[in-house]
């Protein structure tokens, strides 16, 4: 068993274990952290097949940006875990059964000598897949790439549509008016006779 296979199995097991922890641990913060671990493990697997660009992007984008944001959200929201898990035990056996069957099928299909898959060629150390990606991304794949950009745009629009709202009853300041205010706007001088003391 070569060192590569050894690393592969270590990190595969780590990936599966942390992924299952994501959906089983009770504390959502812990679940998010396990997800981070799962990302790391899969980044290592990317590295093993010499896809260093994808590995780095995975860590940078998902771990560095997405998951941090996600943690913020989870911590800010007060989610009642116990209530959400009410039916968990009841459906667990069925869930496990389904999961096992599914896994069994997957294994059955994917097992074998692997000739079913089209193997891509493993390149030498001088090959940069960052450069290769860069070459095709804006040429051959310009159309899908642009569509992906549009999807992100739509995601932004959707997010803004769903969150941006002016509540009719909220009170907020208008600094411009505050600065421009004159004395007579606020104070009314009333001339009146002094009242006699009774």
């Amino acid at each position, binding site marked *: 068993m070569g060192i590569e296979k050894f690393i592969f199995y270590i990190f595969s097991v780590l990936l599966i274990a942390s992924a299952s922890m994501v959906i089983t641990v009770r504390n959502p913060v812990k679940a998010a952290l396990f997800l981070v671990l799962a990302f790391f493990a899969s980044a290592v697997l990317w590295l093993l097949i010499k896809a260093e660009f994808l590995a780095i992007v995975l860590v940078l984008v998902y771990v560095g940006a997405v998951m941090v944001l996600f943690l913020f959200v989870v911590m800010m929201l007060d989610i009642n875990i116990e209530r959400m898990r009410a039916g968990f035990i009841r459906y667990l056996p069925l869930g496990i059964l*389904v999961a096992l069957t599914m896994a069994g099928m997957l294994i*059955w299909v994917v097992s074998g000598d692997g000739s079913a898959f089209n193997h891509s060629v493993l390149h030498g150390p001088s090959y940069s897949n960052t450069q290769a990606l860069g070459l095709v991304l804006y040429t051959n794949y310009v159309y899908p790439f642009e569509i992906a950009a549009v999807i992100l745009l739509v995601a932004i629009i959707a997010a803004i549509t769903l969150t941006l709202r002016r509540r009719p009853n909220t009170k907020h300041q208008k600094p411009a008016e505050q600065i421009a205010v004159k004395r007579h706007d606020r104070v009314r001088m009333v001339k009146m006779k002094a009242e006699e003391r009774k």
Partner: protein
Amino acid sequence: MQTIYLLIVLAPLLGAVLAGVFGRQLDRTAAHWVTSLGVGISCLLSLYVFKHIVIDGAASFNGTVYTWMISDGVHFEIGFLIDKLSAMMMVVVSFVSLMVHIYTIGYMRDDPGYKRFFSYISLFTFAMLMLVMSNNFMQLFFGWEAVGLISYLLIGFWYKKETAIYANLKAFLVNRVGDFGFLLGIAAVLMYFGTLDYAQVFSNASILNDQTIDIIGGQSWSVATLICILLFIGAMGKSAQVPLHVWLPDSMEGPTPISALIHAATMVTAGIFMVARMSPLFELSETALTFVMVIGATTALFMGLLGLVQNDIKRVIAYSTLSQLGYMTVALGASAYAAGIFHLMTHAFFKALLFLAAGSVIIAMHHEQDMRKMGGLRKYMPITWFTSLMGSLALIGTPGFSGFFSKDSIIEAVGQSSLPGSTYAYVAVVLSVFVTALYTFRMYFLVFHGKERMDEHTRAHLRESPLVVTLPLIGLAIPSVVIGYFFVGSMAFGHFFGDAIFVLPQHDVLAKLSHEYHGPGAMMLHSILTLPFWLALSGVVTAWYLYIKRTDIPETLCRRWSFVYHIMLDKFGFDRFNEIFFAGGGRVLGKILWKVGDVFLIDMLVVNGSAYTMGWFSGMMRRIQTGYLYTYAFAMIIGLMALLAIFVL
């Protein structure tokens, strides 16, 4: 030219739609103007087409206007076949229709359904033109059903009158029987030819030779015979041949203009036209031709006899129509298609004339139709009287009048035919000449001559009908008198129809006759030496003797021959037979099916049972549809696994 053809059919349709759908926005005058104008346009254009095709001798047109759909390689199309046959029919249909439109303005003046009536008759004109101009069986069937539908609507036009509703239901049901045969015939054509196009079917007609088909009972039939008889059953329904004739006399419940247009001149002749159009098929089967001839001869003679005992003026003409349709059918059976169509044309004019004249009389008599309460109308209504006389003379076949030429050529043609049954047919048509003369002039004398039998009030109001009524009478009287003289040479004995009608040489009786034909004048002279002339004359004399001279004799005869008289009053028992056997049997069968089939099987087992099953199923599905996300996701996973298990493992 295609634009013109389209315009011919669409102009009446547009009129009908305007008068019918936008009736509320249009006033009465506008309604009759748009419809009459539409029909007027199509009449003028039909005349132009007639000139183009017949007189200038242009080639016939056969083209598709619109492909409705294509299914399994069969084209369902709307198309026109304009040859001499259809050009002639177009002129007849649109001309009579125009006359009837004008006439209706006067006849229906005070009717609340005025606009509806105009919409119907215009729509009818559209449907009838579609029928005659069709170049395929589908459009033929469309027109066929459409004219049937409008006929149904118009017979029951006065839908508050119970007899009218009964009559239109009867017409509808009887026509169903015929149409069922017709549809089977078309289906058989489609099955054997794989196309509905006339030209393709007719050019391949010979493939039917010697083909046989096994029908239930193990008997093998010639396919050609089967197709022709099925198609002819359709014609029997539409053209009211025995025993499917029972609806036509009752259809007189409708307003008189439609009796003239639909139940005398055009729709009822659709069957005759159709058989003539199908001549390449009918020529293949002598059995079918014999069948046609025997049915036609029976209708001609026996329906004429019934006309003798009717007292309702419209019913007399209705039976006369039946009898004349019988003549046309006989001609078809004898392969004298051209003579049949020729008679169709002349009959359309003089029978429409007689109906409209009868309508004119009916208006004057304040909707009294019983001839026993008329008499001596001649001096009150001179135009109606004169035109009726012209029509009657044409009907009985007075030499020189149009009916003479067409009827005489049919009688001669049948005499020449060598098919089995032709002797019977010949005897029947000759005898029926006498009968025709008798009932026609019985009616004529009863209405226009003799004692004035109406009450004082009616007599005081008797006067000639207005111009919109008399004008169409005159318009129809002219062709009724002269048209035979001009067309007998080419239509009956010449090659007027060209390729439109196909006759095998061994059947071509008209060709045999044409050797002895030396012009219309000679034909008239010759007729004085023949039996039909003397029979017609004796019919007229008998009528005069019985109804003018010795008016007591008919009653005595009725008493003396009361048995025969009652059989005839009973219309040979056709109606009674239908009522007891078909209607009664239908009711019994219906009751059994209702009790066993409906109440027990369907209501109890199927309906309640299936309702219960459906309810159970819906309830179960509703329980599954919990509204919880994880249930839905779970269902998806289960579905995925099931599919994987079935299709991958």
